[in-house]
């Protein structure tokens, strides 16, 4: 009996502790959201600590009137959609030949690909290549230099390897070309794997800020993250005043901007988390 009560106490403390951790994780996000929809007076007086006080959407209206945000939003959607499509296409057509045990020079291709995971010459040589190819200030600069992530390529390759070779053999007997096998049989069958790696590519594009920052000079092409950085971190004037950037622009407007940029990701997150977890697992198995 003594053992039983000990177990319960342990369980209760553990549960409470975990609830605290979960609260700490989501608290900043709820707080940001509450500020963004509370009425201005409550925000200014600092009355909002967790839940919104009084509801108004003025901050959102103001953000949407600032023409930079809607445009940056559309840019991000375009870069993310197009980029992820290119990523998945190139990764698929590269993974398929590599998954074939008898593909010519396969050992050497794989060696060359895996080797690049250890060779990372850094920002400058990459920048010079992109600039040298004339990609600066085009969408290609964001899409092509990272068209294939080696880890995702290896994950997809092992996925294809594990698919029954009989599927392929049957197709070959039926006279299907390699293109048909890949596009009409393997790709439709590998939706779970494509969803996992596609999600990582998607997040990579949606959240990317460093590459657009260095490769795009034309501010009308900026994606959301770069505009957010300019607005939230280097305040409007461009000068660095981290000390108290929050005081310069109305807090509600800033938070409304943050919330708007998070909405799509938060909306897909409950639906994609199983793929996300799967992706993390696949990735860790390989590395």
């Amino acid at each position: 009996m003594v053992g039983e009560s000990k177990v319960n106490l342990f369980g209760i403390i553990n549960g409470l502790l975990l609830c605290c951790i979960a609260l700490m994780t989501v608290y900043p996000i709820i707080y940001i959201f509450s500020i963004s929809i509370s009425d201005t007076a409550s925000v200014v007086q600092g009355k909002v600590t967790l839940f919104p006080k009084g509801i108004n959407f003025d901050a959102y209206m103001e953000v949407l009137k600032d023409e930079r945000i809607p445009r940056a939003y559309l840019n991000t959607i375009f870069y993310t959609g197009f980029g992820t499509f290119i990523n998945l296409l190139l990764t698929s057509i590269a993974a398929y030949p590599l998954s074939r045990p008898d593909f010519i020079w396969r050992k050497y291709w794989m060696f060359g690909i895996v080797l690049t995971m250890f060779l990372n010459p850094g920002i400058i040589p990459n920048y010079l290549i992109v600039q040298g190819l004339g990609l600066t200030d085009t969408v290609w600069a964001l899409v092509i230099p990272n068209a294939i992530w080696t880890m995702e390529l290896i994950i997809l390759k092992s996925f294809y390897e594990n698919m029954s070779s009989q599927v392929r053999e049957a197709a070959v007997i039926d006279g299907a070309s390699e293109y048909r096998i890949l596009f009409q049989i393997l790709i439709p069958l590998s939706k779970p794997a494509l969803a996992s790696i596609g999600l990582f590519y998607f997040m990579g594009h949606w959240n990317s800020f460093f590459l657009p920052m260095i490769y795009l000079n034309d501010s009308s092409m900026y994606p959301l993250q770069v505009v957010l950085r300019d607005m939230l971190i280097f305040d409007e004037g461009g000068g660095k005043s981290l000390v108290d950037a929050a005081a310069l622009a109305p807090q509600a407007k800033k938070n409304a901007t943050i919330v708007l940029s998070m909405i799509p990701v938060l909306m897909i997150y409950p639906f994609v988390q199983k793929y996300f977890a799967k992706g993390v697992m696949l990735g860790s198995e390989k590395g």
Partner: protein
Amino acid sequence: MGTLKHIKRDRQLLLLFLPCLVFYIIFRYGPLYGLIIAFKDYNVFEGIMGSKWVGLKHFIKFFSSNDFVLLFKNTLALGFFTLIFGFPVPILLAISLNELRVKWLKKSIQTLTYLPAFLSVVIICSMVIDFLSPSTGLINKLIAALGFEKIYFLIMPEWFRTIYVSSDIWATMGYEAIIYLAAIAGINPTLYEAARVDGCSRLKSLWHITIPSLMPTILVMFILKTGSMIRIGYEKVLLLYTPTTYEVADVFSTYVYRKGLIESNYSYAAAVGMFEALVAMTMLLTANFISRKAGGKGLW
């Protein structure tokens, strides 16, 4: 089968593979060629080949400057503190989640804790700045309410590492716990049953079964993290540092960015970047070697 015949047989596969080949040659091996400029005085108008060779000039300049020691210290310190404080957190989180027997609660807590993994570094940094702001930040309001002086966190060098490391833990603990949770899920349930029959309490079976079974995963993760310690998240540093905190916050990558892309010292920055890459590669190879020696699995 002759090579020519083999090529002919695999021609469709080769055609599919061609874009990948071109990609790796241009964007993964091409930059290695660009590293030549670390040994030249790169001039945009003369190109990589046309620029003048200067040997190790940029390396010598870097190694003999004060920046070298500072950057090395900062990079290692940020990496080291992130490792020491951040590494145990996901393990503990996974273990306690596993001990939570209320299924729906366990699922919701897990879902909530890895939410930050979906947020961009810009958002995370702007939240940090917002919370620490002296005038409107919640933390400073709390400090003021308790009767203390407000702290200008982001311009104070002594706070930078704490801010960096704690926000990093906040953002990554749930995400990293996934790996440990999966490892726990892989433990043979009969072990727990046997322990219960033998009269083990839950704490005891946690100590004698869960933790020992997790050790191989923990070891491999630790060694790999040590290996990539030097590759710290420079995007976050870039967003959080100010000129007043450069002395503790500046790391190799941010320095390369400033010297190279802002001040256009391409050759010098490339030399610094090359040094960083060499250190990172050495650490990773060493870590992998140790990981394999220790009986775990390596990266390859």
